[in-house]
């Protein structure tokens, strides 16, 4: 068992290097918790507290009713009145309001005559996603007010009753928080493991390392220890904190989640280690890690759904360990996934782990000989 003690010794040495520095310790343990709080709360695609402009040139019942509906909306924070469409357009240009409605002089008159009153809407196309959601809100309010003014026979037909499974109120936090386990631990693990070999090379201690009575594989396994542990500890911490602090349910198997986190950590550490064996300096290691991490996050389905990507990028996303871990996080937290479903996402991560860890070993051995 001497190889085990040798590996443990090098792992211990690596842990000391990373965790002995007080500031490094703080950034590795405190910052992930801070990030969970900050970025978890900030990332919402909901659109609330909006300011809407109004240009009212109609003095009748239709505009009065529509403005009352706008005023009663819980998504609208304030209504700003402007005398002309040009003034409204300027307010949008200066970002004072995100959208504005223009009620034409003949609005109530047209409604009274049984025709359709057309309300102009100007939206800020710079913030196109929020603008489209605001347009949806306004359309719904116009339809509701319109039905009060003149009931539609076709509207008395069947309606759609929606049931949102796994997240009845579509709370966006239930999506982001479990996703944080994937995103933040991946960022941490890549940045720590990418430094491991590169640091020795930059400081010139690489040759000393090679002179030790250890096989390259043993050194490499020892080197993965800090990144692996830091990632694992933070992921487990998140798994405990998210249900406690944010009330996100954890309905699935904790055991399966932990097993997945373990395999995910292997895959991500492997990626970081491969970068590290290629890098000559810490700067290269860090920038290399960054250049790899950002696409991994953006292709994981966290920033926007994989379904929306072009086909060839969807194929790439399937080889991304982050997209599988993200699916497992949501699957275990919200959906109570069966072992079979979880394993269908574990094996691609294991494949990545095998490929990246053996690449790192081969590169490391090639460079040490």
């Amino acid at each position, binding site marked *: 068992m001497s190889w085990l003690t040798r590996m443990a010794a090098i792992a211990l040495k690596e842990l000391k290097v990373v965790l002995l520095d007080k*500031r*490094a310790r703080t950034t590795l343990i405190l910052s992930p918790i801070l990030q969970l709080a900050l970025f978890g709360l900030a990332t919402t*695609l909901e659109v609330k507290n909006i300011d809407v402009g109004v240009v009212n040139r109609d003095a009748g019942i239709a505009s009065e009713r529509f403005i009352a509906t706008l005023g009663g909306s819980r998504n609208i924070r304030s209504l700003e009145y402007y005398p002309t469409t040009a003034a409204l357009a300027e307010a949008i240009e200066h970002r004072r309001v995100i959208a504005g409605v223009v009620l034409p002089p003949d609005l109530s008159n047209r409604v009274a005559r049984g025709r359709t009153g057309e309300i102009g809407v100007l939206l800020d196309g710079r913030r196109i996603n929020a603008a489209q959601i605001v347009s949806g809100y306004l359309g719904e309010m116009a339809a509701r007010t319109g039905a009060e003014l003149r009931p539609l026979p*076709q509207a008395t037909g069947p309606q759609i009753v929606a049931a949102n499974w796994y997240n009845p109120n579509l709370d966006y936090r239930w*999506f982001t928080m479990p996703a944080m386990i994937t995103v933040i631990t991946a960022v941490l693990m890549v940045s720590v493991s990418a430094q491991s070999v590169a640091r020795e090379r930059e400081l010139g201690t690489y040759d000393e390392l090679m002179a030790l009575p250890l096989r390259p594989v043993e050194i490499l396994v020892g080197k993965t220890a800090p990144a692996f542990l830091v990632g694992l500890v933070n992921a487990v911490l998140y798994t405990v904190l998210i249900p406690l602090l944010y009330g996100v349910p954890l309905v699935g198997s904790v055991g399966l989640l932990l097993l997945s986190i373990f395999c995910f950590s292997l895959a991500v550490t492997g990626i970081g280690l491969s970068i590290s064996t290629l890098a000559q300096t810490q700067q290269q290691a860090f920038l290399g890690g960054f250049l790899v991490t950002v696409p991994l996050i953006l*292709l994981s389905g966290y920033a926007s759904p994989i379904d929306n990507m072009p086909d060839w990028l969807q194929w790439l996303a399937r080889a991304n360990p982050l997209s599988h871990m993200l699916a497992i996080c949501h699957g275990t937290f919200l959906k109570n996934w069966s072992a079979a479903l979880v394993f269908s996402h574990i094996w691609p991560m294991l494949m990545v782990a095998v490929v990246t860890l053996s690449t790192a070993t081969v590169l490391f051995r090639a460079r040490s000989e």
Partner: protein
Amino acid sequence: MSFMRSPGWHRAAAIRAKEWGQVWRDPSTFGLVVVMPLLLIFLFGSAVSLDTNGSRTGLVDHDRSRASRSLAAAFADNRYFAVKEGSAIAPLEAELEAGKLRGILVIPDGFERGLATRRPADLQLITDGSQPNTAAFLTGHARGALAAWQEAQARERGIAVEPALALLPRYQYNPGLESRFMLVPGAIAIVMAMIGSLLTALIMAREYERGTMEGLLSTPISIPALVLNKLVPYFVLGLASTGICVAFAVFFYGLPFRGSIFGLFAISASFLTAVLGQGLLISAATKNQFVSTQFALLSGFLPSLLLSGFLFEIDSMPRPIQWLTYIVPARYLIPSLQSVFLVGDVWTLFLPNIAILLAFGGFFFFRVMRAITRTIA
């Protein structure tokens, strides 16, 4: 020019030359300045998309009548849905759980009869709430598709009534509703933040780590002059990178560029001043490459991505987080940058933001000077 022969000028030039050498010695700098901008613009241009089209939706028709078939066909033709029809709900539910379907629409038994007797049998839509954004879009699009179908049916039977109110939405500056137009300027902000805070923090921290900073400080040049001259190369790199980004965005992704080059220069230069100061402060405070990078990620990259308002609306965030965004420099860049592409030079918007960014830069430099002076003492 007489000042060019003065010893101070020579010393400053020497510092700049040394810094340039240091920048180009490491090929990863090239990666950061050229490859990263192209990669990020590409990802935000092609991979990140908030346009939900063709959501895979299961459909179960329990009625199997003429009306229900016509409705199912309407959903199949709708561009927001990619319909997969099944005879029973259970197998589709399993696919919803696995994430292979985003929703299931169920047409109930007696749907057609309900239409005739005016006692409507409602449709059921099950969505995958684990993707809340897609689920909300799906429900909205399904309601829209049903309303359109009902109106077409009513018109066929000659009982349609025009709705009292209709909206005519017009999207200023972006009539094609391209989410790319919003995302690509955000990517440029991230590139600038990374070059400003990350590269600077990393390279300066290395000087501290290796002890060469003390050597520099002992050269006969004043500390402000030393610091400013050290920053020149990163400032130029940041601007060059911005130029690459803008060219790629305009020529490859077809973004309009309605402002002026001068306007772009003014807002980029003021933002770079702020983030370079930030990077400098991080390195002076940590003096360690690893800790610097972690800090730069935490205070530079992530806030620029998440708290700047380019991906997530600041007004929708909880109040304390909204306050926090006021100290994120990217918050003051994004609106100007989006405007210089899509609107033009909106100086009434640019100038206050430029002033705030320069104030950030001034504050950071002041702190750096104090930190360095303390080191010497």
